[in-house]
Structures are given as C-alpha cells and as structure tokens.
C-alpha cells in the first residue's frame, strides 16, 4: 500500500512490513561505501566471531537506511524530515529481519506524519527502534 498525500494517511495504520536485504554481501557493500570496512566486523563472520561477536553485523546506520527506504516506498512523494534510530541490539548479517512502521501522529496543518519504527529479528526481538517525521507535499 502506498500513500500519495497526507489525506491518504490513517492514524494507527501499519506500513506493509518489509524484509530488507541483510546479507553479508549487502552489509559489506554498505560498510565499504561509508568507510566502516577493514575490521571484518561487517564483512566476515569468522573475523567478527574472533572479536567476540556472534557473527558479522549489519552497520547500525544501515538500519536507518532500511527504515528510510521503507518510508519512501510507502510515501513516494514524502520526504523524511527527521529520523531518529536507537540501536538496541545488533542486527546480524545473513539473518532475517522485518522492518515495520506505525502512524502515530498526523499534523495536517504542517503536512507532516510521525511514524514509530522497528526492526525485529526472526525471534521477534527488537533490534532497532525509532521515530521518523515525514513531510508530504502541500495538498492542492
């Protein structure tokens, strides 16, 4: 489901959950592009385990990318004005995760919507949560 204008948005609606690509390959590509590569933490399960981690991690800010991508699919004309993400626990590469969002506020006067955001693993454990404010083009 997508929304084009703020009048399409319903309070309490849940954006269609999405499973992002948390593969090691995607994590590696992201880490290299932001300069996080080299330690193996985001690129290699064995090297990550040697550092005491349960496996290679998805960079925390990649979670922010998953969330903004989902918002952009849901609202193709919306702009993410603000996004705040709390890294509660690691997102492990090569493990399935689900990204969800719920509409928690609609400010029609300013054409803005607030979303509560979550990334959960397959055990339904919250790994990342946060909020986003999305601005829609003025009606009319």
């Amino acid at each position: 489901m997508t929304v084009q204008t703020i009048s399409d948005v319903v309070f309490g609606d849940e954006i269609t959950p999405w499973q992002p690509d948390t593969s090691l390959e995607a994590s590696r590509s992201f880490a290299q592009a932001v300069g996080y590569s080299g330690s193996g933490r985001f690129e290699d399960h064995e090297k990550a385990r040697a550092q005491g981690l349960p496996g290679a991690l998805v960079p925390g800010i990649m979670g922010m990318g998953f969330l903004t991508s989902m918002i952009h699919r849901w609202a193709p004309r919306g702009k993410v004005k603000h996004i705040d993400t709390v890294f509660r626990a690691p997102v492990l590469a090569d493990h399935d995760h689900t990204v969800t969002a719920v509409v928690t506020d609609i400010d029609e006067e300013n054409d803005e919507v607030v979303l509560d955001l979550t990334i959960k693993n397959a055990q339904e454990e919250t790994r990342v949560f946060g909020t986003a404010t999305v601005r829609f083009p003025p009606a009319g």
Partner: protein
Amino acid sequence: MTDIDDLRSKFLDLEFDRTGFVIDAEQSATVAKASGETRTEFIDPTDPDFEACAPILASLASGRRLPIDFPALGGISMDGGKAVACIKPVRPGIKLTGKTHLHDIYAKSGRSGRMIFLVSRMQLYDDAGEHLATTDSRQVIRERPDQ
C-alpha cells in the same frame, strides 16, 4: 559516580570540532541501494534531483568524538543510535562544513547499573553558510560498578 550536572554545565552547546566533507555521489548511491532504496533521487547520480541519503549523512564523523578536555568516563562505550534532520537537500560534490557540539548528556539507571548518554550534534553547512542538515550521534557508556 560521574556528576552529570557538572558535565552538562561545562560542556553542553560548546563547539568542539569543525570538519570539512565532500560527499561522493557514487558512494551515496551505493549506500542507498544497499539499504533497499528505490527512489531515483537517492540511487541515480544522474537524476537532476539527486541528493545524499540519510545514512551517509549519519556516517559523517567529526574529527574529535568529544571535547579535548572531556574527562574519561571509563566503562564500556557503545554506539547508541543516530538521528538525521534534513533541512535542505545535501548535494554530493559540494564542500560541507560540520560543526559539532555536545547537545545532551543524561543518565539512566537500571538493574545493571547506570548508563550515561552523550549526544554529539553535528550541524552541516554549505560554503554559503546555509544550514542543510543536522546529525546526532548517541554514545552510551555503561558505568563500571565501582565508579
């Protein structure tokens, strides 16, 4: 135990770092694509409206993480999260200046002890001095029981 009010009075809202950046369009597009982005203004550098995506703005790191005279708090430090406020589109290839200050210092107590949160805020400006975006980095320090 660290005196949070003392830290706040000494360090909040004082710029402690100024760093220059130029965002590479291809790198930003790679970051956006790896995150599952589908909108062309974030994944196609030839799009006339192409702009830097939120995670690449969040990845910009100040030269110093904390003020030079900030006391060592000990304990275990973790990346607690990131926030990005987009004020105007940030175009790759332009010179940016990031001015960083400590925006907030606070503590939370739980069963496993106290955690101190340090929020570093970087404000990004273009060459004309226009404020384009703000990023927050939340550092969490779990105090050692003996502190």
